[in-house]
């Protein structure tokens, strides 16, 4: 097992390269993706078109055409991996992703699975303002037929992205730009080749007995800091990284909360109608009698993502709010 460090960018790149290498039905396309058009806006696909030729292509700026072509290619039996550069631009591709990709298996009575993967980057904290930062996973969580996945560390990113690509359902894999390039972009340990992280299975990042924190993506990193600090105080927090945001691993979450009797759900997205509401509701529905306190949610304010750095930081859920919520349910 190798221990050379790996960044998030390298993790996605490695997963893509591995997928292309082992399965000739894997194809990739998106804006700027091929090497003669720069090898991808974040460089994730650099070198791949040179190596894999026509299986890795650039597209014009046409999110509907990108997603539609992915749907068609998947229906024809390929495993397309497409890039929608930033998650907000899914607003253009919703008809294809929701009305088509996510429903065609069902509408066709099972004849046409749609094994496509959408990679899309997003996340607030870089002053990219209201149209380049949104976490929209809750939209997709509401759509029966697709899976929503994100990673909190490079090894998971590689393993989860590979699993998405080889999954037989449409997956949307969210890559966080701050984990790419921000302060959270510390390289992690590179997993061995072939490493896969199964979909639908959460990861217990820290075991604990006093309270359960459920999170995913970049907020897991914030949560780890808080949880480890509280451990020094003697508070034992179980931290769960959902990895597959939806459908989520109810079993791991419910077993944990059954043990701790307390839970906090943390995500970057706007709290209102966010994924946290679903997780919180499921916990309440299943464990109401056993809960010592109501499940609390930590998420962004009810506002578009502001540009000003001070506003943006105040918009985002931060470590102090995670800590406050943990203290509130354990008080």
């Amino acid at each position: 097992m190798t221990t050379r460090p790996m960044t998030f960018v390298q993790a996605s790149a490695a997963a893509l390269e591995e997928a292309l290498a082992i399965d000739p039905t894997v194809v990739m396309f998106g804006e700027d993706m091929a090497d003669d058009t720069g090898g991808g806006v974040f460089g994730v696909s650099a070198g791949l078109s040179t190596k894999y030729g026509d299986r890795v292509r650039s597209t014009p700026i046409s999110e509907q055409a990108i997603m539609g072509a992915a749907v068609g290619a998947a229906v024809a039996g390929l495993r397309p991996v497409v890039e929608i550069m930033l998650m907000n631009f899914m607003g253009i591709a919703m008809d294809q992703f929701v009305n088509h990709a996510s429903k065609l298996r069902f509408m066709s009575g099972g004849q046409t699975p749609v094994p496509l993967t959408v990679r899309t980057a997003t996340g607030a904290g870089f002053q990219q303002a209201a149209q380049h930062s949104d976490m929209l996973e809750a939209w997709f969580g509401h759509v029966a037929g697709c899976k929503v996945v994100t990673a909190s560390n490079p090894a998971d990113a590689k393993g989860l992205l590979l699993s998405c690509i080889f999954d037989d359902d449409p997956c949307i894999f969210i890559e966080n730009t701050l984990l790419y390039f921000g302060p959270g972009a510390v390289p992690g340990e590179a997993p061995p080749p072939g490493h896969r992280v199964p979909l639908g299975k959460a990861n217990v990042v820290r075991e604990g007995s006093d309270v359960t924190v459920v999170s995913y993506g970049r907020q897991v990193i914030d949560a780890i800091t808080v949880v480890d600090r509280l451990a020094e105080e003697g508070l034992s927090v179980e931290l769960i990284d959902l990895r597959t945001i939806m459908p989520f691993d109810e079993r791991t979450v419910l077993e944990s909360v059954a043990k701790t009797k307390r839970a906090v759900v943390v995500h970057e997205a706007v709290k209102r109608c966010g994924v946290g509401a679903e997780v919180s509701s499921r916990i309440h529905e299943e464990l109401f009698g056993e809960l010592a306190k109501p499940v609390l949610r930590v998420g962004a304010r009810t506002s578009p993502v502001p540009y000003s750095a001070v506003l943006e930081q105040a918009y985002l859920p931060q470590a102090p709010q995670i800590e406050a919520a943990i203290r509130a349910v354990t008080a």
Partner: protein
Amino acid sequence: MPDRPTLRRMYELMTTIKQCDERFRSMIAAGEIGFLHFPVRGQEVVAAALGVTLRHDDYLVTNYRGMHDSIAKGVSLGELWAEYLGKATGTCKGKGGPMHITDRKSGVMVTTGVVGSGTVIANGLAYASQLRQDGRVTAVTFGDGATSIGAFHEALNLAKTWNLPVVFLCQNNLYAEKTAYSKFQTTPTIGERASAYGLPGVTVDGNDALAIHDALQTAVEHARSGRGPYLVEAMTYRFFGHYFGDPMTYQSATEREAAIAADPVPRYRQWLIQLGHATEGELVAMDDAAKLLIDDAVEFALNSPDPDLAELDLDVYAAEVAA
């Protein structure tokens, strides 16, 4: 000029489509069955021409008004009827319905209810063929109204840049729901809009079997030989409005009557006889055979069971949804 078997096969398809549409409408009118039907009566010729031009393994993407296309591409009538009636034996086990016919075995890959959305999906199917070099062509059909939607533009543009083997077939029936084509027409023809993407485009009489067959053959051959996408606009007419029951108050009775008077199916039938491609007797036999096939399909569909409730949790994901 297509050969004699092709000419006759086109008629078989036309009479099947025509009678199928008539049967749906009469049974709905009689209250024997009930669903929202988008009649295709008047548009049989273009579908028949497409049916004989495409190979069996070519891909087709059609839309809610796609019964004629599906039949022409070879969907079994029984499974089609069963799907329209929402039965377990339908092409899609009753889960998709008339607006979402998929029938892999005849190459009907996607039927969409979202106007224009099929055009971008067709590119993906064609891309798969291009990579695999399987020689398949993908055809996608859509209406005049669909050409206003952004997806149509993105589709033609990407098809051209990737040089995909796809034929875009616009069935211009002069109406988009209640809106006459002329109200939103910005160019003399839709065919010529292809030039904005550097691809060939033609406009032909879709009710003239030879003209549309010729145009489609050129387009399909163009795509199949690696020369890229092609746009064909087929001028036609829908006899029964947007949906069956449409009061059609927005359209002039004279216009409609003239179109019906020029019904392309009997016109073609007449022509076959006149040119000696088939005798009246042979054509009657074809009409009768189609009727029998439809009788069987109706019976099959009516006698088929509803889908099992367990189907709700199947085909949502690859794995069953946990209750």
